[in-house]
């Protein structure tokens, strides 16, 4: 388990997409210790509102309790283990188990038990029989849960990634929220295949999505079939951060995927200067870019296209895909409808671009059924060495949106979590995590050369 990822050669063992023992360790070391996306606060506005979701394979209820706080607990009765909630969402005073009628409050506490006096002889210790609680914290309205009491706060877990998220989660107006209910589908692939694809695969866009880009046209249409001559090192960047969160950004392409974009385009035009004023030029530039991202371990989104996804693992070879849509809160109702519709059309269950990806993800997983196939490694060396610390952007920044910097960063932290026995062991590496990106002066040299060239002209 300590040698699944080679950060020097930028390879990963193919076992990571197939082996049950790898998966079991992931559930324990990664899903058991990371902050996992649950929902957005806009879906839990009123007291008693609830949603059900999953943290890896554990069924979870998230509520707005009567005191106004957010609560999360495991959806399994403390008596005989039955689910206590079978709806996707709703509003309730309590959760009643269908099996024997035990009643739990919106804070997960056991509040009533049938025949408690007569048959339990009033001796049942109700205080110790509440639903198993889960840490729950919220970042800019996005709600996450964590099974590990020793894990850092959500804000610290996000780290520099929070700085990037603020670009649109804070933005210039009232920030952003999610539109649901989520579309849900099954994809027979390992959970890391779409996760790595979203964290940093600008490379596949032109080829995998050639059919959709041909029909779409516009700013992104030029990528179709990798035919166009493009200065890829000048069109965007890739970033990876301490805890494996990362993204790639295509400059000026935020609205590229949206065929009907009038309201959204106008909103962006009006908003970018305000973002510059509030958050500075570097983030105003990002605000107008198209991002492909993963928040470690399994929450991905495309900002610009605005699809927001969680890949719930279901064993090593299958996931459940949940898809919401990101909307800026102060966009007009008409603008929001456009965004929701276009996000679903491109990357929903019947999305024209999503359709292209699914098959690759399934085959990239199931080709590893073969024992001899699985002996090999996978390669993620694109752009290796063309990355480092940047004066404007935190984390490690890669030279182009078509590169594999954020792949490398994702798997670097993946290996760290798979090997570490505790969060203390992970914290001890906080100063040295970026050592595997040794070209420290990459951006200094490149920006100096660019400045010299500009001066010469």
């Amino acid at each position, binding site marked *: 388990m300590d040698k699944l990822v080679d950060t020097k050669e930028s390879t990963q063992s193919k076992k990571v997409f197939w082996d049950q023992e790898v998966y079991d360790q992931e559930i324990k070391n990664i899903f058991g210790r990371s902050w996992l996306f649950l929902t957005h606060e806009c879906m839990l506005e009123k007291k008693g509102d609830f949603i059900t979701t999953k943290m890896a394979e554990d069924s979870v209820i998230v509520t707005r309790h009567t005191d106004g706080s957010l609560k999360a607990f495991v959806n399994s009765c403390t008596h005989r283990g039955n689910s206590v909630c079978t709806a996707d969402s*709703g509003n309730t005073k309590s959760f009643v188990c269908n099996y024997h009628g035990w009643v739990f409050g919106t804070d997960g506490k056991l509040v009533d038990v049938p025949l408690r006096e007569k048959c339990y002889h009033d001796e049942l210790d109700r205080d110790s029989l509440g639903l198993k609680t889960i840490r729950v914290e919220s970042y800019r309205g996005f709600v996450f849960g964590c099974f590990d009491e020793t894990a850092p706060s959500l804000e610290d877990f996000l780290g520099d990634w929070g700085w990037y998220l603020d670009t649109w989660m804070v933005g210039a107006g009232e920030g952003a929220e999610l539109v649901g209910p989520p*579309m849900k589908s099954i994809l027979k692939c390992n959970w890391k295949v779409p996760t790595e694809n979203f964290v940093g695969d600008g490379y596949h866009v032109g080829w995998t999505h050639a059919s959709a880009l041909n029909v779409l046209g516009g700013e992104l249409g030029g990528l179709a079939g990798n035919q166009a001559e493009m200065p890829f090192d000048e069109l965007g960047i890739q970033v990876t951060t301490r805890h494996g969160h990362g993204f790639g950004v295509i400059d000026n392409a935020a609205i590229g995927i949206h065929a009907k974009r009038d309201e959204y385009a106008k909103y962006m035009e009006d908003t970018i200067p305000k973002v510059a004023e509030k958050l500075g030029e570097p983030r105003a530039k990002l605000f107008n870019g198209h991002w492909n991202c993963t928040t470690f371990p399994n929450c991905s989104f495309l900002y610009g296209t605005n699809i927001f996804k969680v890949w719930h693992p279901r064993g090593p070879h299958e996931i459940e895909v949940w898809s919401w849509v990101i909307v800026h809160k102060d966009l007009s109702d008409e603008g929001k409808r456009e965004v929701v519709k276009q996000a679903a059309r491109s990357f929903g269950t019947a999305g024209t671009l999503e*359709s292209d990806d699914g098959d690759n993800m399934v085959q990239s997983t199931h080709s590893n059924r073969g024992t001899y196939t699985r002996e090999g490694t996978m390669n993620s060396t694109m752009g290796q060495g063309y990355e480092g610390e940047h004066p404007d952007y935190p984390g490690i920044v890669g030279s182009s949106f078509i590169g594999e910097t954020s792949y490398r960063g994702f798997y670097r932290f993946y290996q760290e979590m798979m090997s570490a026995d505790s969060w203390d062991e992970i914290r001890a590496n906080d100063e040295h995590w970026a050592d595997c990106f040794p070209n420290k002066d990459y951006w200094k040299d490149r920006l100096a050369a660019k400045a010299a060239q500009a001066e010469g002209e």
Partner: protein
Amino acid sequence: MHNTEAKERVSAQLHYELSQHYYQEATLLQDAEFSTWIETFVAKDLHYWMPVTERRYAKDKRPEPTPYDMAIYNDDYDEVKDRVARLLTGAVWMEDPRSTVRYLITNIEAFHTDKDDEFVVRSNFAVYRHRGQLEHSEHVGCRQDLIRKVGDGFQLARRKVSLDARVTEDKNLYIFF
């Protein structure tokens, strides 16, 4: 948009004609004759809709989804036409070799509406897709259509597709229902 009132049932003759139309439509779709389908079987004012429906408790009084809410399909004519155009680019790698898709269309019930040339038609479907060696998926649900008599045939003006499954057990849904 999808709430045209269904009045009395159509005659046996009209029901037969409509049923034949539905079987022909299924044949076009399973033979990948998408251009013929969009050009002759579909009206220009089409709305093609597959809402996302949550599992909710019976006591939950929130309204049913509308076309303003999250939907898997929420397309006008041009948007469906774009989907067809994509399938015909020759660059949909996973459709070469092609999948086979089979449509079983049943329980066709047809009703008159306020307009002489428009009918509400409900039907059930089972769609099976096979691909590669062992890959297969199936989708079961119902459709509520608004169908318009045009010349000797009919054209689809509204289609609401309801899948029975909450979680779609398939890698994608670029097939038409």
